[in-house]
């Protein structure tokens, strides 16, 4: 009964009389509510955006589906809350959302000063530049003095500043826009020469411009932007749950377990797979007694492994079109950076 709660709160607000509720763990809260509240972007194709039938799709959305499958046994028991870059941390720390899966970069400042815990990365990104082909610039080193459209309140702006100073380029003129829609509109109308954002987003933005061919993404990656789900500090059980849901999808890919073949692995003799599907080890119960033994099985069977999610949402055959092979987002065994601790 979400709404009776809202109205109660309104009444509370009216008379300003409140008492502090006793805080149980997030995991128990989610199970009691029988619904996971997940903070996402909601308008970022490939990460989290509604498809034609209004269902949220993307690698960030898949993290939410995965956690719901592990904790509640049903991937669809998720309520998505779209958040702007500015309000996302307040929303998480105030308890408005249980987990924040909104292409959020892990940095020291955020880790240390916001009261949050970054779990692990579901996409490893880096900032880059997009510019009009007609400007005739082929390297980011030639961008000194340019006007830069940027979404206010992202880490990209800092990365760009660092890059310009490290390379002794003439300072740029920032044009900070409030939303990604306005940033794109400003760039297209000519308010600036270059648009800077994470490279995954640049690809998406370019595909949405009126004439994508007239714009080029420069080769340089100027920053490290490891993106992943975030939880509140001080709830280690929930922290471990979210972290290991993510690790399980990576382990599943390493082991060759996918959503379509996992049912055939149910009685696997391979000890690693047996632990993944919950036949041996009782790993889920180690995280918390309230999880079922098959929590990872539910994740893989309902949402798929890490690679499946990538290919379905941002891979080469999607409008985003990011090639995975040989990129940092490939498994460590194939030269990438995706390396999950073992399930044992």
């Amino acid at each position, binding site marked *: 009964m*979400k*709404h009776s709660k*809202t109205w109660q*709160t*309104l009444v*509370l*607000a009216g008379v300003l009389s*409140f*008492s*502090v*509720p006793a*805080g149980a763990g997030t995991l128990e809260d989610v199970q009691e509510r029988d619904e996971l509240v997940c903070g996402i972007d909601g*308008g970022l194709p490939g990460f989290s955006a*509604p498809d034609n*039938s*209004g269902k949220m799709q993307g690698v960030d959305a898949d993290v939410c589906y995965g956690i719901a499958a592990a904790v509640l046994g049903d991937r669809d028991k998720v*309520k998505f*809350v*779209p*958040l*702007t870059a*500015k*309000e996302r941390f*307040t*929303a998480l*720390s*105030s*308890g*408005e959302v249980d987990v924040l899966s909104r292409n959020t970069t892990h940095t020291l400042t955020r880790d240390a000063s916001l009261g949050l815990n970054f779990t692990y990365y579901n996409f490893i990104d880096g900032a880059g530049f997009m510019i009009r082909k007609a400007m005739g610039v082929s390297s980011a080193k030639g961008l000194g003095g340019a006007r830069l459209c940027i979404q206010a309140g992202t880490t990209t702006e800092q990365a760009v500043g660092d890059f310009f100073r490290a390379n002794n380029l003439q300072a740029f003129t920032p044009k900070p826009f*409030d*939303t990604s*829609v306005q940033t*794109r*509109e400003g760039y297209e109308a000519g308010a600036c020469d270059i648009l800077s954002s994470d490279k995954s987003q640049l690809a998406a933005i370019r*595909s*949405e*411009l*009126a004439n994508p061919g007239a714009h080029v993404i420069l080769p340089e990656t100027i920053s490290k932007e490891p993106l992943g789900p975030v939880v509140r500090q001080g709830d280690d059980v929930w922290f471990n749950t979210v972290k290991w849901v993510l690790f399980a999808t990576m382990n599943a890919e390493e082991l060759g377990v996918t959503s379509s073949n996992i049912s055939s692995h149910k009685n696997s003799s391979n000890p690693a797979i047996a632990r993944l599907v919950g036949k041996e080890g009782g790993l889920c119960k180690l995280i918390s007694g309230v999880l079922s033994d098959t929590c990872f099985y539910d994740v893989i069977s309902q949402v798929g492994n890490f690679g499946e999610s990538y290919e379905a949402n941002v891979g080469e055959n999607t*409008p985003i079109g990011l090639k995975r092979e040989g990129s940092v987002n490939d498994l460590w065994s194939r030269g990438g950076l995706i390396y999950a601790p073992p399930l044992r």
Partner: protein
Amino acid sequence: MSKFTPIPAREPPASSVGVVGWVRTHLFSSWFNSVLTVLILWSLLQIVLPALQWLFLDASWGGANSDACKTDFISPEDGEHYRVDAPGACWTFTKVRFVQIMFGLYFAAHPSEVWRPVLMFALFGGLMAPLFMPAFRWKWQLGVFTLLVFPFIAFALVHGEWLGLPVAETNEWGGFMLTFFLAVGGIVLALPIGIVMALGRRSDLPIIRSLCVFYIELWRAAPLITILFMASNLLPLFFPSGVDFDKVVRALIAITMFQSAYTAEAIRGGLQAIPKGQGEAASALGMGYWKNTGFIILPQAMKISIPGIVNTFIELFKDTTLVGIIGLHDFLGSAQIAARSPDWKGYDFEAYVYVALIFFMCCFAMSKYSQHLERKLDTGHKER
């Protein structure tokens, strides 16, 4: 002594009556005015005709996708056929995206539920229409019903939970409907606070008066954007952890606070206009403060301040567009997003014109209504 018979008055010269006379006195009264008239007529032709052509004559109305707004073009250079944008407005866009722009994403994704907001707006129209009929006698009661009961009916219909319908969570609300809810909800919640604050500001008790002045000036001095930022960043800090608010509810709280200060000032204007004699007469009859206020002062003051309240409501209605800045998809925001979707690239001009036209119609009608009320309610009792 013969009777004095005045000679009949001469007819006015033909040049000062009728169409010719009107034109002469109103358009060509001096050489300067004549030049002005000709210049203005010429530039109007330059602007209005192409605008009408774009809006209506060349516009595309039918079709189901952006192809309806394109036209065949044979390049004179290579003789190839191209599909290029037609010269007129593309109203196909607003037609296809109508539900998204008007009612938000939830109803766009669930076409079978669209009847709910439609019925809500129809009910609202049905409730408002009698207010414009001079013969209708129950205006006062109807107004109170619209203010106190209708919001709950509207919420129940659109949200759905109370009626057992599929639930449309408030964070999935959007479009014109969200703008409507924020503005109407804001004024309904702000009215009681505004009345209390206006009475407090006129009170003889110094502490109550200064608290009310503080409250009113606090919200009036700050721009709405800062108040919306306050609601989205600070409100969660003000409440014990675990108390969570919907984004829409947070925006509504901010709008209510902001609006209550303006409503209070409008009502204070009404209170000031009541002649002192009214209150004094009531006191002489032995009425206490509450009776005096409730039966004598307030009914008259509210009547006088209705036009002022309607004017603040118009401002509020326009200001709700700012909720886009804290991430809600209101009317303007929904239209912008619809115009940036991959299949409707480049129709943002149409989106802006569409939103502007609807805002204009609503606000213009309301301001004319408020002027009409002002004239009608002016019973000559105001203190000037």
